[in-house]
């Protein structure tokens, strides 16, 4: 490398350069932010206003689109359905995976690695591969138009990631703690329940957040399982609403903006867990 020492460090390049870098970030921010802003403001316009004045502030501001969404019983029903399914999916997948991850992390037995690899391999198969036979199976079990028909498969497909992350965490807990617990007369279940799980709280939070977000956004599975629209989750509701009011754009916009809020609110609260879960999951997957 050249010998011109003491050249400016890369982080403090000339003012011109830092302005141009900043410009790139700002342009990207516009690319990401304008669609969101357009949706929020669009919801306050009438469809007529929206086509004559797509980008400016609404004049006058029309809150009816929003109030009608918030006043519709079906929206709240979907919100409830999505919440209910997300919470149950999370409970099932975390409980089942934690038990399995415990075994994979702390027990030695023949075929352990093979079994673990089998679970981990579940990661690389797209959900779309199994949707069709899954539908056939769910029909056989009578689980169509039943929230369990979404909850159980989601939990099953969420297991690989959850087990991988939890196993890594459980492994990191020192063996001395386990020995002390055993000497004090703890059973394996007691150790798992009273010591391991409380210690693994951050990891449990991380995988729970991942499970909630995945369940919340799941589209394909509810699409094939639910035909009764009183069971619809928010993504299905969004699609249905768009189909019904396709020409009334402002109204659809208000609907999707309201539909975004729970996810964005959750993101605001759980950003840390979500990011750490995604990076950990991606790296270990």
């Amino acid at each position: 490398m050249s010998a011109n020492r003491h050249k400016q460090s890369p982080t403090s390049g000339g003012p011109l350069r830092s302005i141009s870098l900043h410009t790139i970030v700002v342009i990207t921010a516009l690319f990401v932010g304008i669609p969101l802003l357009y949706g929020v403001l669009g919801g306050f316009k009438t469809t007529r206003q929206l086509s004559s004045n797509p980008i400016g502030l609404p004049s006058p501001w029309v809150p009816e689109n929003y109030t009608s969404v918030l006043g519709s019983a079906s929206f709240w029903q979907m919100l409830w359905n999505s919440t209910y399914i997300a919470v149950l999916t999370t409970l099932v997948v975390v409980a089942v995976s934690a038990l399995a991850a415990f075994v994979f992390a702390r027990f030695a037995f023949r075929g352990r690695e093979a079994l673990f690899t089998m679970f981990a391999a579940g990661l690389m198969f797209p959900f779309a591969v199994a949707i069709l036979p899954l539908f056939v199976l769910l029909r056989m079990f009578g689980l169509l138009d039943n929230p369990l028909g979404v909850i159980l498969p989601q939990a099953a497909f969420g297991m690989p990631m959850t087990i991988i992350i939890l196993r890594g965490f459980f492994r990191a807990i020192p063996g001395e703690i386990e020995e002390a617990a055993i000497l004090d007369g703890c059973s394996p279940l007691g150790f798992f329940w009273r010591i391991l799980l409380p210690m693994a709280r951050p990891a449990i939070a991380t995988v729970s957040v991942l499970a909630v977000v995945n369940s919340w956004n799941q589209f394909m599975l509810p699409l094939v399982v639910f035909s009764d629209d009183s069971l619809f989750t928010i993504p299905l509701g969004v699609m249905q609403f768009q189909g019904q009011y396709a020409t009334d754009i402002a109204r659809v916009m208000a609907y999707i903006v309201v539909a975004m809020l729970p996810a964005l609110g959750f993101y605001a609260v759980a950003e840390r867990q979500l990011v750490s879960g995604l990076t950990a999951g991606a790296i270990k997957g």
Partner: protein
Amino acid sequence: MKTTRPRSLRLRGFTTILLFLLPALVLFFGLVVAPILLAFYASVFKWNGMRGLPTDFIGLANFTRLLADEVFLGDLWRGLLLIILSLVIQLPLSLGIAMLLNQRIHGRAFFRLLFFAPYVLSEAITAVLFMMILSPTEGLANYILGWFGIDPLDWFADPSSVMMSVFIVMTWKYFGFHMILYIAGRQGIPRELTEAAQIDGATGWKVFRYVTLPLLGPTIRISVFLSVIGAIQLFDLVWIITGGGPSHSSETMAVTMFQFGFKRFQVGYASAISVVMFFISLVFAVFYQRYVMRRDLEGASTVLRDQR
């Protein structure tokens, strides 16, 4: 992957192991393994998916039909196109933005939060939002293009521009996710290394090219892997926005499978598509892990593990 086992052998006991593993095994075999096997089974039958099991065995006919089907071959080509676009445009963008946000830029936390936000939204919401923004008649995008004197585009309505439009939506939704991976990866690189390079006289670009980029290797390979798997299974966005149209020009494998399986009741044929998707994912994953990520799996992947 042999690692040091915790000294927990005392906890042995076959029944305990079995009891702890049982729920996971039941769920996994019942709802992941069994469906995949069922797809294999159904793929060699002509079957309308009605009750009971298929009986009309036709051997590999579904697969030969598949390989002669222009729509399916188109799916493969479009999948490849999306992968190439992701690798050439989306990932470099994510990487570039991640490097910029790693510097002391004003409002960095805000940008990070904003860029990642679309990832949290469901595909359904994203799809509907962009149907309106990229609407040929009254969409925002054409309005903005008008400022620059560019004629309105047909976006999703034109076979020649539909894939580009889908890719724009994908980039909007997913680049923030890859950015987050790169930011985490970048933070895992010790300061001393970049500082040492700077003291040796390396300028910004050279530090990036010869220090940061190689050390980001594991992250980049993961990011590429996830992009490819994502492109193979792309469904939600396309299904809602175009349903695969106009005239199959935005169809993906998953969409074709869904069409045949749930709309036209050719479940045997659709299963054959599932099986091909399975093998494409498998072959890609095995090949990739074996030849591309090999070094990472041998321990270098711990870079990010300390991030928590």
